[in-house]
């Protein structure tokens, strides 16, 4: 008999008030891994839940044993034709993964990312001033959404007028992980939902959008990442249409949902612990550790899954070939054996040991980590420069999903000194 938790972590409802800390505490305290049955998929179906940091890191760092390509990277299984239709670099192992990473890496090195600092500052400053003028509003809508989508769209070359559409469609992707059924014909979709990422029709919408933008840039290239992706050759090969559209969808999703989540949680923490952030004004070194603590505590991506390519053992539990292994970053980030007073939000927490907010290490570590750090850092700086006090107006509403730790609505009151 495989040991189990008293709750089903595949139920999005468990995450409606944020990370289920007590459950994850129980998970980490177990001797081995916890088996989570998925009775809807069959009598023996289920996945292993990995909760301790060291176990998550061991899975992350060993793509030969724990594959991203062999099964799905979310906990539920999908058919092989669906797997291949949606493959992007996040669903690959080296060397395929390395080949695609090489294409986008040059856009994400520190030298290039630095050039976005002032752009973020300008945008964050303007949005904060506008919101201050109104005395508050929905932080998610006014701050967390527009800053990250703006930057990733700048990089990709998505026109300003389409940015709200990008937000809407990526939200509708995440909606595919909620318990609510989606309209299969939304965005003109005709593909069976089972073939689409997140089983969401928005995946079709994003693919069609990417295809049009790619065609445009192929005909009339500009200085943006989409133009690069459609024209670049690796060993004489170009990306196929599908590889390109999947790439676009991945970058748009990852470049906006995750940083958005961290920015929403940042506001909650600044409201709860204004004194901690105030310290940054006299000790600039705390800015970097504050960013890491916000990411640790918010754990924007709650989990990713791998699939065992061979029989193995983890944390004392035997794993069979083909078993699904779910790495709960949201648990690893609160592992009391790694982080002192792990449940305490503390911006002075040292950078090392590192958290799992960008993944548990290994080749799939978040490509945009450096960009996220810049965006969060500059946002904090601009908030402090305006002496902004954030007050939570009503209980935050979380996105109904067990995949991202997203905040749907966060009404706040703001006071401070606008700069313009």
């Amino acid at each position, binding site marked *: 008999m495989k040991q189990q938790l008293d709750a089903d972590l595949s139920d999005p409802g468990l995450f409606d008030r944020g990370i289920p800390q007590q459950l994850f505490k129980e998970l980490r305290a177990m001797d081995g891994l916890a088996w989570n049955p998925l009775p809807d998929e069959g009598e023996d179906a289920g996945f292993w839940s990995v909760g301790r940091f060291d176990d998550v890191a061991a899975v992350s760092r060993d793509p030969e044993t724990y594959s991203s390509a062999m099964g799905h990277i979310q906990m539920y299984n999908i058919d092989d034709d669906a797997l291949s239709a949606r493959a992007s670099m996040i669903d690959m192992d080296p060397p395929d993964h390395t080949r695609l990473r090489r294409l986008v*890496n*040059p856009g994400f090195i520190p030298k290039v990312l630095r050039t976005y600092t002032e752009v973020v500052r300008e945008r964050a400053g303007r949005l904060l001033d506008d919101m201050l003028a109104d005395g508050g509003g929905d932080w998610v809508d006014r701050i967390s959404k527009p800053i990250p989508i703006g930057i990733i769209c700048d990089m990709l070359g998505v026109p300003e007028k389409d940015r709200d559409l990008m937000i809407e469609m990526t939200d509708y992707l995440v909606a595919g992980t909620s318990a609510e059924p989606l309209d299969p014909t939304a965005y003109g979709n005709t593909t069976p939902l089972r073939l689409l990422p997140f089983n969401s029709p928005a995946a079709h919408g994003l693919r069609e959008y990417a295809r049009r933008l790619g065609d445009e840039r192929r005909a009339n290239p500009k200085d943006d990442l989409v133009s690069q992706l459609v024209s670049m050759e690796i060993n004489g090969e170009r990306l196929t249409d599908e590889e390109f559209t999947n790439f676009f969808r991945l970058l748009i999703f990852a470049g906006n949902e995750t940083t958005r989540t961290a920015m929403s949680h940042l506001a909650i923490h600044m409201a709860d612990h204004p004194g901690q952030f105030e310290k940054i004004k006299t000790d600039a070194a705390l800015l970097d550790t504050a960013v890491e603590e916000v990411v640790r505590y918010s754990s924007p991506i709650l989990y990713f899954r791998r699939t065992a390519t061979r029989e193995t053992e983890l944390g004392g539990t035997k794993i069979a070939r083909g078993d699904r292994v779910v790495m709960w970053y949201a648990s690893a980030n609160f592992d009391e054996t790694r982080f002192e007073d792990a449940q305490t939000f503390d911006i002075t927490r040292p950078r090392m040991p590192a958290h799992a907010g960008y993944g548990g*290490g290994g080749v799939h570590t978040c*490509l945009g980590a450096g960009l996220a750090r810049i965006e969060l850092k500059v946002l904090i700086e601009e908030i402090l420069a305006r002496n902004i006090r954030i007050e939570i107006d009503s209980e935050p509403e979380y996105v109904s999903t067990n995949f991202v730790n997203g905040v749907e609505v966060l009404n706040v009151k703001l006071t401070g000194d606008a700069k313009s």
Partner: protein
Amino acid sequence: MNFTVSDVIVESEIITSFLLTPEAPLKRDFVPGEYLLFESSSDEGDPIRREYSISGVRDGDIRITIKREVAPEQDLPHGVMSTRFHDVVKKGDIVRAAGPMGAFKLDRTSDRPVVLLSGGVGLTPVVAMAHDLAGTSRQTIFIHACENGRVHALGAEMRQLAREHENIVNHFLYRAPTAEDVKGRDYNTEGMISRKLIEDLTPGCDCDFYLCGPGPFMTAMYDMLHDMGVATDRIAYEFFGPATVLRPKTAEPNKAPTPAEGGPTVAFKQSGVQVAWDPAEQNLLEFAEEHGIMVDFSCRAGSCDTCKTRVLKGDVSYPIEPFERPGPGYALLCCCVPDGDLELDI
């Protein structure tokens, strides 16, 4: 931030300067070479952004100098932003810009002679540099190439600067002088910048070279300096916008030189680049990237082995401990720094 246009000065047939008064003091003084990032709406609704180098300051106002960009072919549109500046923007208007920013900056800590090489409207950032250098002990050679006197901008200003400061020397080249252009008065040489000209005018290779101009000009100048034996970390050049550097490239440094006296040297064998280690760098991965060498990477935190590289000569040390150190003869570039002279197989 908003800026008020306080004056518009026509510099040549196609080049105009705009003096801008910031609505609030800038966060910091600009370093010569930096630019402002302008944003403007367009008919399609997408905002347009363009970088324009700061060509100088006057009474607290910032000056930018813009060339009207006409379409290279009949079917293509003219430069949207530059056309707007030339045709629409007038004194008293408000424009919106962020900055100053940019990686192409005068290294004020160096005491080497300076060679400023520009082509066309690329002279704007190096004019700002020349103003900054005027009256210092650093010998400054300002070499500018353009078509002819009709498009030569800021010529009178540079002549005056050279008259008033003995450390500034000008040399102007016109590719196709007109009947009105007088050699010796308006320009010094007819034709393009040659290796011999640079060798004759400059005190040798141990200068700080700054390049700015159109792409082909920069490539030609860069190769020429490289052939002359100028160390790559002595050459800095203008670098606009992120997408420009998305193209993988080899051995194209864009930093002003920052050598450490007697510090280690790092050789990237396959790339043919040898540079002095900069102790301000966090690790060898970033150092390589700063010098235009793209190394495969994933985690940048010592957990994935993607940036593992063969060490041909020398040794490294690890200020950041990776999950596992690589075997002998290899280095994880994202976590290590050179421990003495180093040769890497990339």
